[in-house]
């Protein structure tokens, strides 16, 4: 390709935050360029300013709170920050367009897909109705949406997540803009769906020679599609270069740390004594949800868990891996009887938990505790955290003083200062809250710990710390764990045995090394084939079991 001027040239961009924010600027003195025919990935964790920068390019910052106070953004030579409103509106959709993260909320729920795409054409072209519809159908087919002619009249809620995102891509590309900004477009999608969308991006970019500014937090995605990479931290670009350079030989320490924190897909080996006793056994568990109904109209029947069997030995970590809707969370809830399954048995130390009455169950509950996914919803906002941790033992008859001292000890175990026992959950970060959740689960000294996607809501660097903590605790206390996740990388590092779930059933079950080396079930193979960046080897490999790293 002949070198031509970049389609996007950001120079010294600074975006101020409102006075009540925790730092003065969202973006500080950021400069980067995007050539006309390449994909530039901007990577960073939450709070890095990458989304703010992306929106600044299209002047979509929420006025008046966020303002670009310095620098310039040259879109094909025009400085976006100094254009008139009318000219900016002309450019939007025509020369530059944007694809958002959450397609369900980014589309107007009361308008059809066709109407929303047509709006772009009606605004910027003089095409007639028939020609517009024709173009829309062509575009929908180009993004590989089935039944394009009918989809035009569909509403967003009638489509799946992946289909909605394809529709958004069609809407963004229909006027063939020179620059497309994609703000975490696959983060809200399942990994198999994500694979399709990423492939679509690559295909379209190559075919139409578009410049793509792709925002993401996932290095795997970067490895799969980027031509060049920019790494952002606290509003600054700390490193920028080609994909090979940044991913395989990162120069900046932050980039190095981030990449090191990405779990490798190579399972680490651990020895589980084959004669270790089974501490938890699940037999033929079934749970079906019934909704709607009445007066003979359609009752919706959703089989969430279909006859699942599994067993966890003492000290073993069993991973349940699956996408959304696979039933893995329902399975966890059924095991601790937060939800009552219709059929099956859950055996712990010879007792079938399913058969117990509510009162008897309460006594047995202490043996199996859960760490939940959402750090912002799993702690009572009105309780001090010391109290939160001590409450379990107190409820089971431990005297208050002893329970509180146990709470202090646990706080230190998870790497928090014991004085934080008097503080409220909102005073802690997401990673710290997960630690508190772990402390709470451990307070009852359970034999089995269920971790339901405990790190999915965390940034990758924090994720690594929490995973290290869990592994350390597990080894020290000889805990058995049921670890639920959708992320195969995490499963590789934490689990000894894996059960792959799909549509309520376990399709494959075995030692982690065996399954990762040669998956046998077609779905497992599909799952592995969809992990982004699976061909990329980490430049630096920190082995697991490094000491617990307090925040």
């Amino acid at each position, binding site marked *: 390709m002949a070198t031509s001027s970049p389609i996007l040239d950001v120079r010294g961009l600074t975006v101020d935050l409102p006075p009540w924010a925790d730092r003065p600027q969202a973006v500080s003195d950021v400069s980067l360029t995007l050539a006309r025919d390449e994909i530039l990935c901007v990577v960073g964790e939450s709070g890095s300013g990458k989304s703010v920068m992306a929106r600044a390019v299209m002047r979509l910052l929420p006025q008046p709170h966020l303002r670009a106070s310095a620098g310039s953004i040259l879109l094909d030579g025009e400085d976006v920050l100094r254009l008139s409103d009318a000219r900016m509106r002309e450019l939007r959709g025509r020369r530059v367009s944007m694809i958002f993260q959450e397609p369900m909320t980014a589309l107007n729920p009361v308008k059809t897909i066709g109407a929303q795409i047509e709006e772009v054409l009606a605004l910027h072209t003089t095409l007639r109705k028939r020609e517009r519809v024709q173009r829309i159908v062509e575009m929908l087919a180009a993004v590989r949406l089935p039944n394009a002619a009918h989809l035009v009249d569909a509403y967003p809620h009638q489509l799946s997540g992946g289909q909605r995102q394809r529709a958004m891509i069609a809407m963004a590309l229909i006027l063939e803009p020179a620059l497309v900004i994609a703000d975490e477009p696959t983060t809200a999608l399942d990994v198999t769906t994500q694979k399709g969308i990423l492939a679509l991006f690559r295909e379209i970019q190559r075919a139409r020679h578009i410049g793509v500014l792709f925002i993401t937090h996932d290095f795997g995605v970067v490895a799969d599609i980027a031509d060049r990479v920019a790494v952002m931290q606290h509003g600054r670009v700390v490193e920028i270069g080609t994909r090979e350079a940044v991913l395989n030989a990162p120069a900046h320490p932050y980039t190095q740390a981030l990449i090191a924190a990405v779990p490798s897909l190579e399972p680490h080996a651990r020895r589980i004594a084959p004669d270790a006793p089974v501490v938890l056994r699940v037999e033929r568990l079934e749970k079906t949800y019934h909704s709607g109904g009445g007066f003979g109209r359609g009752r919706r029947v959703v089989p969430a868990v279909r006859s699942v069997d599994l067993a966890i030995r003492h000290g073993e970590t069993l991973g349940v891996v699956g996408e959304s809707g696979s039933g893995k969370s329902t399975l966890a809830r059924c095991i601790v009887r937060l939800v009552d399954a219709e059929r099956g048995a859950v055996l712990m130390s010879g007792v079938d938990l399913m058969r117990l009455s509510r009162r008897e169950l309460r006594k047995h509950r*202490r043996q199996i505790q859960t760490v939940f996914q959402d750090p912002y919803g*799993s702690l*009572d906002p009105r*309780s001090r955290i010391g109290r939160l941790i001590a409450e*379990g033992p107190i409820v089971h008859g431990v005297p208050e003083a002893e329970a509180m001292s146990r709470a202090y000890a646990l706080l230190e175990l998870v790497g928090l200062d014991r004085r934080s026992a008097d503080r409220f959950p909102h005073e802690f970060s997401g990673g710290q809250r997960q630690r508190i959740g772990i402390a709470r689960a451990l307070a009852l000294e359970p034999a089995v710990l269920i971790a339901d996607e405990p790190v999915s809501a965390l940034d990758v660097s924090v994720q690594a710390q929490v995973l290290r903590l869990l592994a350390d605790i597990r080894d020290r206390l000889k805990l058995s764990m049921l670890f639920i996740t959708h992320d195969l990388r995490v499963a590789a590092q934490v689990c000894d045995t894996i059960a792959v779930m799909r549509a309520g059933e376990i399709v494959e079950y075995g030692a982690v090394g065996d399954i990762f080396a040669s998956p046998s079930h077609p779905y497992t193979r599909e799952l592995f084939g969809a992990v982004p960046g699976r061909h990329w080897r980490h430049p630096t490999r920190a082995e697991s079991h490094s000491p617990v790293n307090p925040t």
Partner: protein
Amino acid sequence: MSAFLRRFMRNQAAFAGLLVLLAIVAVAIAGPSLFLHAGPFELAGPPFSPPFGRYPLGTDMLGRNELAGLVYGARTSLLIGLAATLFATLLGVVTGGLAGYYGGALDHALMRVTEMFQTIPSFLFAILVVAILSPSIRTVILAIAIVSWPPMARLVRGEFRSLRNREFVQACIAMGMSDTRVILLHVLPNCVSSIIVTGSLLVATAILTESALSFLGLSDPNVMSWGFMVGAARDFLQRAWWLCAIPGVAILVTVLAINLVGDGLNDALNPRLRH
């Protein structure tokens, strides 16, 4: 707690409303002792004396002191408003809470009942109840409580239902806590703010309902009430329109103050960035 107070005080409208409300309460409590010599029903002077004359707010069609009527009327309105709301809130919290927490048949039954109450025109029902049971303070409070209870129950049901599914409540259940403990220590405290806000607005509605009932003649005959004053003066609109105006203004100011406080409470308890 102090953060909440600070947010509330910064809201000038809410603060003003609070001051007005406190003034009205003060008048209601202390006022009668200033009128030891004359209750509101006593004939104080010639009828239809205009305000700002010999009597601060004039006299009504029978010669009763308007100002005394206002002061005693304040007591009535506040008393009935608060009492009715208290009962409605208690009933609503208990039924809505149980329905929202346990779901199932209990929830269905409750939904049916609130649907029924939603269908019944509430003011007409209140009229019926008071008319049939004979107007008195007790029956008015009962009638208003009966029609105010369903909205509170619906709100509490919604809150309990969503809180029940939050992970921290699930964690409590998984720890082996009894339902009573979970509800009282974890669920209820997290919806107290919504209950308070709704309760304050219920008080305002109760006062409006009470005044409408007494306007129509359905008030306790032994007690002076603002609505009654307006209703009694209705036939004299041409001659002394201020007799209708003044008590109405009192109602307006009181309800407005309560609404301002309620809005202020809502903003302070659910802080959201004002864009």
